[in-house]
Structure formats: C-alpha cells, structure tokens
C-alpha cells in the first residue's frame, strides 16, 4: 500500500487521504473515547452507593438502557460496536502516521535538543501501545471474566470489583495504567482540538492545554478513588 498521494488522485481524493484527514479521524475517535471514559468514571462511582445500586446500574447498562427505544439488550452491543470501531480507527491512523513520520526522517541528529515538546507528547506512540495492552487485560478481566485474579465470577459485578481491588498490586497496576491513559489524554485532548481547528490564538492554546490538564487530572482522581477506597476497606 502506498502511503503517499499519487498523481492519479484528484485534489479532493488526496485531501480525503491526507495526513490532516487522518489526524482528524484520530481526534474524533480520541474525543469519543474520552467522552466514554468520563461516563465510565461516573458509573464506577456507583460503587460508593452499595451493592444493590452498582449491580442495578450494571444490569441497566447491559439490558435496559434506551429501552423501549431499542429492544432490551441492544444498546450495549451497539455501544460496544461504536467503541470498537473508534479504537480500531484510532490505532489505524496512529500507526499510519507513525510509519509516515519514520519514512520522513531517515537520519537523526548527532546532537538533538527539544525546545517545546512535553513528556506526554513524546510518549503518545509507545505510551499508546502500553495503554492498549493494559486495556486488553482490563476487558479480559471485567468484561469477559477470563483474567479475574481473586476467583471466578459469582454473578455480582459489585463483588467481582470488590475482590479484585482488595489485591494491592492490582490497585498499583491500575494506578500505573491510569498514568499512561491520563498522560495520553494530557496531550491528546489539546492535540485533538488543535487538529479540529480550535487553536485560534496563543491564548486558545493556553486555555486548551489547561482544559487538557483538568480533564486528565479529573479522570485520574475519578478513576482511582474507588479502587483505593476498596483496598483500604472504605467500601464493602
């Protein structure tokens, strides 16, 4: 597959296949995932309301969401399909642009000094891969129940979450995973808005970066309070 536009394409066709269009796809899918994470974080906080509340929420999400607009149980599968598509498209554009960037720089400098790059920006690619690896473990654990560490699934999502986060190294693993996720979002949030055209002035750049920090910190704290509370026995 050729990565670059060839002369046989019309200007419109090359625009659709351009690096900027790919980046816009990455931005839209990335923002979709951030939206999902915010919802997910809100859902997790139901753990604080007790077993019945959390189990009811989990059941509602899987069966009754949008019922009767959609038949029972449909929403979750539509939702999963959209998220899976977003992840696949996001990774596809990331890898394609990564390969392009590699081809664009055959030689490196003997002396190299960066003046603007942040640590988050530098680690978007390898960080993204680590993040995706842990995402697979996470889904295998709580969605498929294949990598549950504390024991087999007993039918109560609440008990499952409780017993997994009673393990200290599990909480540590998630704390680490969320660092990679939130670092990715620290640069990704700002970058997505810049890609979609919202960086209209130096001031907008400051505001967007501040929002990126806020969202990243909110997600980190929001996701980590529950596991930490379980570990220290404040829940359950």
């Amino acid at each position, binding site marked *: 597959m050729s990565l670059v536009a060839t002369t046989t394409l019309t200007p419109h066709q090359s625009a659709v296949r351009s690096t900027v269009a790919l980046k816009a796809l990455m931005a839209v899918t990335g923002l979709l995932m951030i939206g999902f994470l915010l919802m997910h974080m809100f859902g997790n906080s139901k753990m604080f309301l007790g077993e019945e509340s959390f189990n009811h929420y989990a059941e509602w999400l899987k069966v009754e969401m949008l019922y009767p607009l959609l038949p029972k149980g449909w929403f979750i599968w539509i939702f999963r399909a959209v998220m899976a598509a977003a992840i696949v498209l996001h990774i596809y554009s990331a890898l394609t642009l990564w390969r392009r960037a590699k081809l664009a720089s055959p030689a490196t*400098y003997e002396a190299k000094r960066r003046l603007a790059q942040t640590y988050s920006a530098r680690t*978007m690619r390898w960080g993204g891969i680590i993040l995706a690896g842990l995402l697979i473990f996470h889904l295998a654990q709580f969605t498929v129940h294949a990598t549950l560490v504390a024991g087999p699934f007993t039918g109560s999502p609440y008990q499952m979450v409780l017993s997994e986060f009673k393990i200290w190294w599990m909480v540590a693993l998630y704390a680490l995973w969320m660092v990679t996720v939130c670092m990715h979002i620290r640069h990704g949030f700002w970058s997505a808005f810049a890609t979609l055209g919202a960086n209209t002035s130096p001031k907008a750049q400051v505001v967007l970066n501040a929002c990126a920090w806020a969202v990243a910190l909110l997600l980190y704290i929001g996701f980590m309070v529950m596991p930490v509370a379980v570990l220290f026995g404040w829940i359950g």
Partner: protein
Amino acid sequence: MNITLRVWRQANAASEGRMVTYQVQDVSEDMSFLEMLDLLNEDLTVKGEEPIAFDHDCREGICGMCGVVINGTAHGRGNSPVATTTCQLHMRSFSDGATIDVEPWRAGAFPVIKDLVVDRSAFDRIIQAGGYVSVNTGSAPDAHANAVGKLKADRAFDAATCIGCGACVAACPNHSGMLFTAAKITHLAMLPQGQPERHLRIKKMLATHDAEGFGGCTNIGECAAVCPKEIPFDTISQLNRDLIASLFKRDGK
C-alpha cells in the same frame, strides 16, 4: 574566542557523511555564525582542504537560505535569546572554548546536497501547487476597492513573513512541513483575493506536502519554537480547519 566545531561533512548526496572536528582560533564575538564559518573556510582553503559548503545569500535574515542545526536546535535557537536565522546569530551567544555541533537539516524531503547544504525544492513544489492567486490583474485596482479588516490584514501579514527556511521541518520530530504550508494557507485565507481558490488551494498544497514525504503534524510545537519569523503555531489549526471544511466542498473533485 577559541571554538571547537564539530561539523557534518558529506562530499555529495550519494556518499556517507560524518562529523569532523575543527579548531577555530581568534573568533570575534561580534562575528555572525556564518562569518565564523568563513574564517574556518579561509583557513581550510589555505591548508588546501575542501572548505565547508553551506548555503547563504542575504546574511540579513530575510532570504531563508542559511539554516543549519546548531547544538541540536535549528538556527541555534537554543543558544539565542531571540528568534533568529543562522546568519543573524552572533558568536557572543556562545562562550569562549565552547564545542559547537553543526549539522544540516535532516528530513527525507530535504536530501543533503553537500556538507550543510540541503535541497529544499520540495517547498517550492508545495507553493507551485497552490500558494498563489491566479487572476488576471488588469490595471491596478483602486486602493480602497477591497477593504481588509485590520485583524485579518495583520494575520495575513504575519503569516506572509515566512522566508521558507525549513527550520520548522528540521525541528519537527515528525519532519512535517505543516508550519510552512500553514503560513501560506493562512496568508491567502485572510485576504479577499485568496477566497475564490481557497478550498482547491488547501487540497492541492496538502496533497503535494504529503507526496513530498513530509510527516504529519502532532501539535507538538517545535516548529514555532525555532521559526526565525515567529510564524504563529495557530496557523496550523487554521490549515486544519480549512482542510476539514474543504472536504465538504466540490472543488477539485
């Protein structure tokens, strides 16, 4: 001042290059970086060695010919207190006895021709693809016939100061030519004369940018940090906005 220089020497595009170390004695701190290289080259010529090839023309910061990477930053921006071209960087920005690394722009789209000289004609081809206004001007229009708002005029002028030096590409971790392309896109997008071809222009210029082998932008900002003309980083967002809008237009279908 006495300086130790480590300079990239490469006989031609096909040959392997390497860093070579030279001592340069009696450098005045009022010399420009290029004058310091001249001094070294005179010395090399007297010794019967091949002088170091480097590009330059105006030596007053307006032609864009003279870019090299100095101590890891384009135009030596990391050593200079202000935005600068290599020709406007002075030796007082370095300390006596310093060791200075000098390398050519490194990007697949800018192949090395010799030593520090690279081929930046990929930029010319991006401009040729659409960085112009194609109207028959006829006789000069009345000066007030086309009013341009102050803010837009300022933005157009700021963007138009790009000298095509290529420092943005040299500094970019993705070797993207986005700041250069965005400067021209923004310049013409702010002006009434640029409107008729606005959507076609972005499609054609970006297609050429990509086809020339430049990488994609990831909004890191190394480009704007080294740009001698301080082309605003937000011009790239302007380009993105124009490209996304153009995807919904028939121009160039």
